[in-house]
């Protein structure tokens, strides 16, 4: 006789499947490689998606607590490596991968995470130039948020001591790589701000791989830099290394040594500047003194030429003086003229023809009216006129004696 078939309930089957899966050693912890599709971030915070390859697909669930720790945001089409366990969900019988961790597959894993964070923080405005604070030209106290050991800090101290020992240095020691590094750096940045003693912060570390520098790409550090009231200079790795700290900071230096050079002036240059300033001040004052001397001389000269009021008074005096002299001269001339006139009059009087005539002399004129002073001027029979003091006679020349 045949035995009747075993009949299981659905529950039993599903439970058995689950047990079988969970008892399979390999399924307890494994890595699965595939492409994400049907990705859904549930409101609960859990991730649900499918990992597929060319031939098959596998359901994946990632619970909230694990999902939150991801360094990147999963997207459809992304090739990933997921770490977790295989089991099934008894209610549905669905076989799934319960992923505990996931990373983008390939060498660019961290790079992708970097790019995504950079983009997100940029969109939030953490890199805005308007937010950046000016770096003080002559810092009094500089806080170094870095490892207290290693070449980086020794180089910075040495360079700053040579260039500008005036600045006081405060070291806030932190871890610069590893899991705890980011939190350590962020805390130190807060401590510097809380103490409020520094007027400049330099944070960074020496060169290393992307993993080594990763702390300076972490969001917590970026935000601590952004919210620092004290200006922050980011100095991570070597010249080609660019970290998110570099974008958020108020200034970037390519290396810690470069930061030391950028952040403090060189005292040799300062001495030179002070010397040239002294020369400028001296020549400026000498010019002023010279100008002043010239101004004084001009004033003095003008005063000698009389001031306006004195000038007028003097001119008036001059005028009066001249007028006086003129008058005197004129009077004298007048006197002289009168005298001369008088003399002339007397002379004329003395020699006046009338006076001469009165003495008995007479004036002889010919018919042309010409006065005849000599008999030589007469011809016998000519008509002449004789003028007496009183009256006149017309005569004819009878005889001429030429003596």
């Amino acid at each position, binding site marked *: 006789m045949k035995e009747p078939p075993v009949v299981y309930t659905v529950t039993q089957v599903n439970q058995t499947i689950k047990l079988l899966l969970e008892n399979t050693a390999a399924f307890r912890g494994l890595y699965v490689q595939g492409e994400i599709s049907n990705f859904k971030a549930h409101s609960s915070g859990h991730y649900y998606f499918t990992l597929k390859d060319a031939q098959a697909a596998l359901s994946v669930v990632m619970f909230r607590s694990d999902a939150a720790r991801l360094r990147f945001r999963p997207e459809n089409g992304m090739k990933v490596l997921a770490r977790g366990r295989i089991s099934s969900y008894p209610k549905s019988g669905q076989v799934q991968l319960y992923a505990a961790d996931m990373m983008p597959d390939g060498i660019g894993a961290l790079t992708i995470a970097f790019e995504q964070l950079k983009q997100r923080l940029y969109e939030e405005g953490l890199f805005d130039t308007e937010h950046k604070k000016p770096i*003080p*030209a*002559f*810092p*009094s106290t500089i806080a170094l948020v870095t490892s*207290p*050991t290693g070449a980086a*800090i*020794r180089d910075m*101290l*040495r360079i*700053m*001591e040579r260039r*500008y*020992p*005036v*600045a*006081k*240095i*405060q*070291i*806030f*020691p932190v871890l610069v790589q590893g899991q705890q590094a980011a939190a350590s750096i962020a805390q130190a940045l807060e*401590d510097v701000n809380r*103490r409020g003693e520094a007027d400049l912060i330099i944070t960074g570390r020496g060169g290393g791989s992307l993993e080594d520098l990763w702390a300076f790409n972490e969001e917590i550090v970026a935000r601590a830099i952004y919210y620092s009231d004290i200006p922050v200079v980011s100095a991570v790795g070597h010249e080609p290394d660019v970290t998110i700290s570099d974008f958020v900071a108020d200034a970037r230096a390519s290396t810690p040594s470069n930061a030391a050079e950028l952040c403090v002036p060189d*005292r040799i240059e*300062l*001495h030179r500047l*002070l010397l040239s*300033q*002294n020369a*400028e*001040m*001296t020549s*400026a*004052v000498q*010019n*002023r*003194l010279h*100008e*002043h001397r010239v101004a004084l001389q001009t004033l003095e000269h003008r005063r000698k030429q009389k001031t306006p009021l004195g000038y007028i008074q003097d001119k008036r005096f001059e005028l009066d003086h001249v007028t006086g002299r003129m008058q005197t001269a004129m009077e004298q001339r007048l006197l002289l003229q009168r005298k001369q006139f008088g003399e002339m009059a007397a002379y004329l009087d003395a020699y006046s023809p009338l006076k001469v005539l009165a003495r008995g002399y007479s004036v002889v004129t010919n018919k042309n009216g010409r006065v005849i002073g000599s008999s030589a001027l007469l011809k016998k029979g000519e008509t002449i006129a004789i003028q007496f003091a009183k009256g006149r006679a017309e005569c004819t020349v009878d005889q001429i004696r030429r003596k």
Partner: protein
Amino acid sequence: MEEMTFEQAMKRLEEIVTQLESGDAPLEKSLALFEEGTKLSAYLSKTLDNAEQKVTLIQKQNGQEEEIPFDAETE
């Protein structure tokens, strides 16, 4: 002068040089500025020459924060 920070002193000196060079100030003022300027310059120069770098470490232990001298070579 000692109350001023190095930066404040440098800035004040720069102001004085600019004012003197502009030639706007009357002679009395110019002479006073010159005096102040030379004093500042001497102070700054002396500070630069005599300065010794001071380095400290902020140490945290059991929730306490302490500032202690730091020597790079021995750390």
